[in-house]
């Protein structure tokens, strides 16, 4: 009895936090404050939103009318495609966290992740209906489609700024400055990663060639 009750409570909390995303996207300043400070969000809900975003991105490839999105299927690798969304997300969270901890940002990594994920909510919401919509319009009515697509992205961008502002307790200008700085941090991380992998592969290649040489001499 107790176990099932607890289970029910957990689910209840999960759905409440997920439903809270709808409040967040319409009341960003208030919403993001409560999200982290009043514990009204959950990582589970954040993960759900990320997964929904990934799903919608993939569904978009398959189901959007070819009038608006021409997909060269031979060039699509689904894992790379998913990584191309997740990797920048992770880089953003880590980069932002790394920078803001140095400049008295109040957010923890998990909070930054949660805030970013909740900020993504409009994207799957709008894009899902845009997939359906794209199949009933012609080229000439495409302006609506492009407008809505731009709207979804613009809304997300606005929400991310609000989220960072509330989580780190920054002013607006400082937030924007640090988001720009985060992009540089992301680039630095990409550079370091590339350096790391290229060094590793060269190092390995070096030892392989030494072994080959020895085997050749013996």
């Amino acid at each position: 009895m107790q176990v099932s009750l607890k289970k029910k409570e957990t689910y209840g909390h999960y759905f409440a936090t997920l439903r809270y995303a709808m409040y967040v996207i319409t009341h960003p300043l208030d919403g993001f404050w409560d999200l982290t400070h009043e514990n009204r969000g959950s990582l589970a809900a954040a993960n759900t939103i990320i997964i929904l975003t990934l799903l919608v991105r993939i569904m978009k490839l398959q189901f959007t009318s070819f009038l608006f999105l021409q997909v060269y299927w031979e060039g699509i690798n689904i894992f790379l495609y998913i990584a191309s969304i997740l990797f920048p997300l992770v880089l953003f969270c880590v980069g932002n966290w790394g920078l803001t901890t140095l400049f008295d940002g109040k957010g923890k990594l998990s909070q930054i992740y949660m805030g970013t994920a909740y900020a993504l909510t409009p994207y799957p919401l709008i894009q899902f209906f845009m997939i359906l919509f794209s199949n009933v319009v012609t080229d000439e009515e495409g302006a609506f489609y492009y407008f809505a697509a731009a709207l979804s992205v613009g809304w997300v961008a606005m929400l991310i700024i609000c989220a960072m502002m509330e989580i780190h307790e920054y002013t607006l200008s400082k937030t924007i400055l640090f988001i720009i700085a985060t992009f540089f941090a992301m680039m630095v991380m990409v550079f370091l990663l590339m350096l790391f992998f290229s060094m590793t592969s060269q190092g390995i290649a070096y030892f392989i060639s030494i072994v080959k040489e020895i085997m050749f001499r013996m």
Partner: protein
Amino acid sequence: MLNRKIKSLIVLTVVVCILIGTVTKVEADDGLKKGYTYNYDYWSDVLYSPDAYSTVGVYTSVELGLEQGFNNATGMYVRGDTLYICDTGNNRIVELQKVSKDTFELVRIIHMIKGEVAVKTLSAPTDVCASEDGYLYICDKGNGRILKLDDDLNYVMEFTKPTDATFDQTTAFLPNKLEVDGVGRVYCIADNVNKGMIKYDSDGTFAGFYGASEVTYDWTDYLWKKFATKAQRAAMESFVPTEYDNLYRDLEGFIFACTTNVTGAGLDAGTDSPIRRLNLLGKDILIENGNFNVIGDIYWGEAGGYKGPSLITDITALDNGIYFALDKVRGRIFGYDTQGHLLYAFGGNGNLDGYFKLPVAIEHMGKDLIVLDSKDSSFTVFTPTEYGSLIYKAIEEYDIGDYDASGTTWQQVKALNGNYDLAYVGIGRALMRQGNYKEAMTYFKLKWDTHNYSKAFKQYRKEWVEEHIGLMVVILIFLFVVPMLVGKIKKIKHEIDVAENIERLM
């Protein structure tokens, strides 16, 4: 005896085997496997196709019975069955007559002219044009004049260096290519003139420049020039209009002009246009509705010593509006329809028939193509294959409005080449004209034709809505009216409950 029998038996088996072998190996050699003819699909992948044109023959001085071989021939003109070749290096013009499908006969060799004129010889003639009223116009480049001769080579008049102030008087006048329109106006491309083509009235007066291209530069160039020193500026390329290389006057009277003065970057950005179709005002009216601009090859891989974009050196247009551009870099011929779709590209550099060393001019005789090769001192005649003819047929049928027939012909083309995008679009357009929108949509979708798909879909959607209007109304009613009713009923029920409760309490 027995031995002989066995031997003959073996021979017989071998012969039978060979015969069967040849019979079973019958497979239409449509040229697909050679990779001679190709096209680009929507994703700009190269798709090899059956040959649209096959060679009838390669003609050198030997085949034509000339004593002296061609030497650096540069110009060519066709009027009816007559072919004029400007044998520039030998200072003569060779006039040939096509007598049968694959034979040309020498009519005359023009190296002297008659009449009241001081210089009666030709010097390095580069182009020739035979007008409809029987006059012959010759670009006598070495003598700096354009000659107008009558049928018997009698001198009629000449067009010389314009004395106009707009014309640079310091440089020599070197007419290179010419065309003559129906009323005897001459359009001439001269070397070292970058103001466009020189246009003469029929009486020989200079009528101004024609078709000068707009000077294009982007703001980065402009910025560079602002900050550069005088010496740097002088070393930089100046913003000058491009010079034309060749021209062709099509059946409708528009001038096709081509220029080799293009850069890879300019073509990528879409600012350089190697092929232009000029109207009377000299404005470019070429239609480019294809997946790619009309620029020849879209890949310029550096292979076999050839690099850079296609350099279009000559153009010819068939009577049905399809035009062919000749690329002198890779020796290729590009066929485009009036909408700027690449129909097919074929050719190449090499020694085989159908390949070139340095193609300089292309002309057409009916639907046959003639390509002049100056390095090989020969010209090659191409004739459409079944595949090529079917494409022409389908396009012509569509143009005259016979959409059903066009659809069937495109089906035949598709049967020969299932990779041919235009066949699918052609079938789709025919279906659309017949009102079969749904099926048309599948054809357009297969070949990513968003424009036509949209058109078909619009009609299909209209039909669909008209058919399902009843259903939609019903759904709307369910969506709005039913919840309203349910709400009302609930309200009444609630009131009754309240009333009952009150009654009970009292």
